[in-house]
Every structure is written in C-alpha cells, then in structure tokens.
C-alpha cells in the first residue's frame, strides 16, 4: 500500500504506529484515531458546503440568465467566504421566553442529522467511516434526528409561526420518508444486505438500470426530504413567514442553511451509492482514490440534476404535495417492491444478467405506463365539470345571402 493508492488508510496506519511508539496502548490509539477521523470527516463535510453554495448559486444564476457570484476572487469563488465572515459577525438574538436548551440544540441536531449519514457512506473501496451491517437503517435514523432538530427549533423559539412551520416541515418529512424507505428495500433486496459497502460492491449492473422507477421515486422523495423547490412550500419565502427557523439569527440561522446545502448534496450522494454504483468503475478496486473520483463525478451529475429541478419547477401547493406522496408515490413504491421482487425471483434462476435486466426493465416500463394512465385518467376526471353546460339559445345573426354584384 502506497500513499497515492490509498492515502487515508496510509496516514491512519502511520499515525497508529506513531501513537504506539509514543507508548499509547493500541486500543486507546485506535479510539483516538476513530475520534480524529470522525472529526476530520465532519470538518471536511462542513467545509465542502462552502464550495457547494458557490456551485449552486453559479448554476442557478446561469439558468436565470445572470452571471451569479463573480466579484470576489476568480469566478466569484470566494463569495461564500465573504458571506461566511459576514454571518460570523452577526448578533445572536434569543427571543423572549425561548426554551433555551432546545432552541440552541436545534441547529446542531439539524447539521448532525446530515453529517451522521457521511459516517456510513463508502467513499471508496477502502475509504469509509464505518461499514456497519445496518447502514440503510442508520441513514433513516439519522433522518429522524434531523426532524428532531426542526421540532426543537419550532418549540424552542416561542413563536407560533415557528411552531406552525415546524409542524408543516415535519409533516412533509415524515410523509416522504415512507416511499423513501419502501424504495430503499429494492437495493437491499438486490444485494441481500443492509450494508452500504455491500450494496455498492454488488452493483455490477447499476441498480438504476434494474429499477428505474424506484430510482426516480427515491430521487423525488430525497428532494422532498431536503425541502427544496419544488417542495419548498414549508419555507416559501415569497408567500409565508419563512418557517421553523424564523427566530434564528447569525450563525445559528446559518447552520440551518448549512444543513440544507449539505443535505442536498448528501441526497445526491445517496442516490449515487444506492442506484449508480457508488465508487464502482474501471480500476476502482486497485486504486481506491479513483473510486472516490468516480463517486464524486456521479454525485455531481445527480446534484446538478436536482439543482436544475430547483431552478425550473414551480412550487407545489400543500394539497398537491400530500397528494403526490400518498396517492402516487407510496402506492407506486409498494407495487414496485412487489413487482420487482416477483420478477427478480422469477428470472434469477436463469442466471443471466441480460435476461434480468430486460425483464426488470420491461416490468418497470409496464408499471410506468400504467401509472401514467392512472394519472391521466384522474386528471381528466378532475377537469370534468360537475354540471354539464346547458345549450343556451343565442341570437345569432343569420348568414346574409351574398349580395349579387352591384349593378
């Protein structure tokens, strides 16, 4: 193992040997390294947000026929730093009657709920925080902690708008968790494991090819979980008084934004891991660093797509948002799990990946066509007027006989 092959584990082993040579017990050294690794991963995740903010503002700017940030540094790269230093200097205002502990804990939990996910993501074949056997469930649990942060913010602020905003947010997050969890069953079913590393390793065929419809459902639910356009009605700035974070100022407010940007990127990361093969690619096993590059390319492709959606799709109303989830995504996800399980079990004895691919693709296509037909029918039923318009007799000028040529 050389440095360029696998830098993270190389440095880890070197540090371990240094600590042991200093007389630290090996298991204590192991724990020191784990804490150090978790700290570095968390700091890198938070620093990465600075780049994400610039990237997203730039794309959105171009989509809206603007230049985006372009004054501070080359291509405006240092604009987020300027914003960051501004927000550092702002005053923290704690509202009267706030419940101080939940109020201050909320931004921390919001960021932690996202950063915890990074702990189980396999960034490369050898670079990962922890390859736990229940990784998929861990991700769902981390999402629950993010929701807790939002509830704490709503309760602690002592503000009815914040409380209503928190209700709205948590109602949306809990609702969209259901199709998300159901679609996550499909990669678990294909790979036979809840561990993210095993899910990535078993994707010799990307799962997005085997299960395109569940992949799409997962992407939609992830966008809703992040709470971005078109699902940003929980804090629609132009229509209502923001949301659960209305009473926050300074860096505490900034932390909620950090959590949102980080969550948006993490959603793309999860999609890449579950459906796009994660770090898999040519030579990724021999050169783990290359796997990291593959994962980042895939993630940025998905992230770019979600930003495009954010920039183009108008906001849903709350009834539409709930309708999409409960009347379309949840039943479709349930049916897709059944269909995929049956088709997968039928074609697996054949043992040919091509047959599996074709059979699952056809099954997905059939389900997609049926779903679209349902949507079309229900839209038509909604458009049909309750009372048929009666034929009203209207005085209509009689067609005049064409005049003959004037004499």
């Amino acid at each position, binding site marked *: 193992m050389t440095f360029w092959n696998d830098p993270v584990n190389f440095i880890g082993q070197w540090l371990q040997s240094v600590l042991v040579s200093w007389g630290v017990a090996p*298991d*204590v050294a192991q*724990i020191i390294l784990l804490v150090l690794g978790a700290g570095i991963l968390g700091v890198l995740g938070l620093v990465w947000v600075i780049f994400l903010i610039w990237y997203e503002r730039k794309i959105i700017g171009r989509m809206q026929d603007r230049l985006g940030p372009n004054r501070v540094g080359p291509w405006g790269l240092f604009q987020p730093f300027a914003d960051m230093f501004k927000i550092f200097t702002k005053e923290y205002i704690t509202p009267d009657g706030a419940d101080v*502990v939940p109020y201050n804990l909320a931004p921390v939990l919001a960021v932690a709920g996202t950063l915890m996910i990074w702990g189980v993501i396999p960034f490369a074949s050898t670079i990962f925080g922890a390859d736990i056997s229940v990784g998929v469930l861990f991700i769902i*649990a981390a999402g629950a902690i993010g929701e*807790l942060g939002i509830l704490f913010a709503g309760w602690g602020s002592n503000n009815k708008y914040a409380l209503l905003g928190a209700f709205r947010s948590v109602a949306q997050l809990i609702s969209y968790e259901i199709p998300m969890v159901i679609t996550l069953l499909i990669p678990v079913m294909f790979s036979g494991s809840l561990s993210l590393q095993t899910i990535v390793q078993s994707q010799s065929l990307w799962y997005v090819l085997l299960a395109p419809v569940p992949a799409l459902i997962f992407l939609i639910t992830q966008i809703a979980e992040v709470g971005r356009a078109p699902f940003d009605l929980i804090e629609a700035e132009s229509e209502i008084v923001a949301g659960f974070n209305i009473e926050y100022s300074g860096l505490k407010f900034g932390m909620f934004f950090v959590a949102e940007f980080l969550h948006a990127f993490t959603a793309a990361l999860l999609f890449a891991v579950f459906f796009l093969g994660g770090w898999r690619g040519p030579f990724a096993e021999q050169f783990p660093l290359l796997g990291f590059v593959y994962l980042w390319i895939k993630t940025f492709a998905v992230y770019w797509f979600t930003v495009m959606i954010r920039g183009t799709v108008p906001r849903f109303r709350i009834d539409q948002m709930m309708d999409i989830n409960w009347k379309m995504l949840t039943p479709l996800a349930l049916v897709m799990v059944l269909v995929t399980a049956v088709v997968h079990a039928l074609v697996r004895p054949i043992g040919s990946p091509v047959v599996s691919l074709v059979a699952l693709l056809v099954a997905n296509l059939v389900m997609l066509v049926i779903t679209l037909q349902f949507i079309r029918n229900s839209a038509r039923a909604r458009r049909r007027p309750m009372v048929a318009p009666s034929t009203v007799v209207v005085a209509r000028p009689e067609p005049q006989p064409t005049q003959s040529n004037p004499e």
Partner: protein
Amino acid sequence: MTIQQVFFLAVAAITLFAAVMVVSTRRIMHAALWLILALFGVAVSFALLETGFFAVVQVVVYIGAIAILIIFAVMLTRQVFLDVGPQLNRGWWIPAVLVAGLYAALVGVLSTWSGFQTQAAALPEAASDLSQFGLALVDVNAYAVPFEVASVLLLGALVGAIFVASDRKGVER
C-alpha cells in the same frame, strides 16, 4: 477498567438521569425531550452490546416515530401544559422501599450466577449477519406467528386511525 466500561458507565448514568427527569420535570414538553435522551441512551447501550440492529431500530422507531408523535400530541393539546402542585404524595416512601428491596434482591440473585464476574466474550463475526434474524421472522418454527400477530395489531391500529380521522358521509360532526 476498559474504555468500553467507562463508556457504559457514562451512558448508563446519563440514561438514568434522563429517565428520572422524565417523571420529575414539571413541563410535559421537557419530559418528552428528556424521554428522547433516555431512549437515545438505551440505543447507545445496545450499540455497546454490539447489537447494531437494535440500536438503530431503537432510534428509528422510538425517537423517529414515537417521540415525535408524543411531541406532536403534546403540542396539539395545550400550549404550555405546566404542572402545578406537589409531585409526591404522603405514601412516596412505600414504593421507594419496595423498589430498593426489589433492586437488592435482583442484584443478590444475579450475583450467585456463575457468569456474574466474567468478562463478556466477543461476539462471533456471524452475529452481525442479519439474514438469520430475517429468516427467523418468517420461519414457522421460530417467530413467524408473533411477527404476524404484531402485524395484525398494527393493521387494527391503521383501521382505527382511518375510522377516527375520516369524514363519514351523512354524519354531522
């Protein structure tokens, strides 16, 4: 003392303190928040016992679903829900003595067990394999019947929730 034992003692102390605060705090909202800390402590205890599945399920089910449900219920009922008046009645020492006696008896019985002083053996690698657990849930000779009965219970709860929440046609509310 190994690092794991230090961890366990700290987590146990935090969990117990949070559990006591759940019943002794006066604001019911704070009680819900302390309950979350106590449940989280239980999850960490599961993790220390190398049962990652139960640790994560503890967080998903108890914190992600039940605690949030409790908070919703508390928030939707009354605004502050501040409890006034004495929290103990005159007979508080009877359960205290009973519980202390029960604790002493349990420790006494357990200390006669041969495995009381030994260190916990490391779990075999296969113990983290969840497929055995999953198969046991659908095996008729194992836990298929309790699992299905639990599903029926949940179905009953679902039907009840829909019945309570639905707008029945022709019924004035």
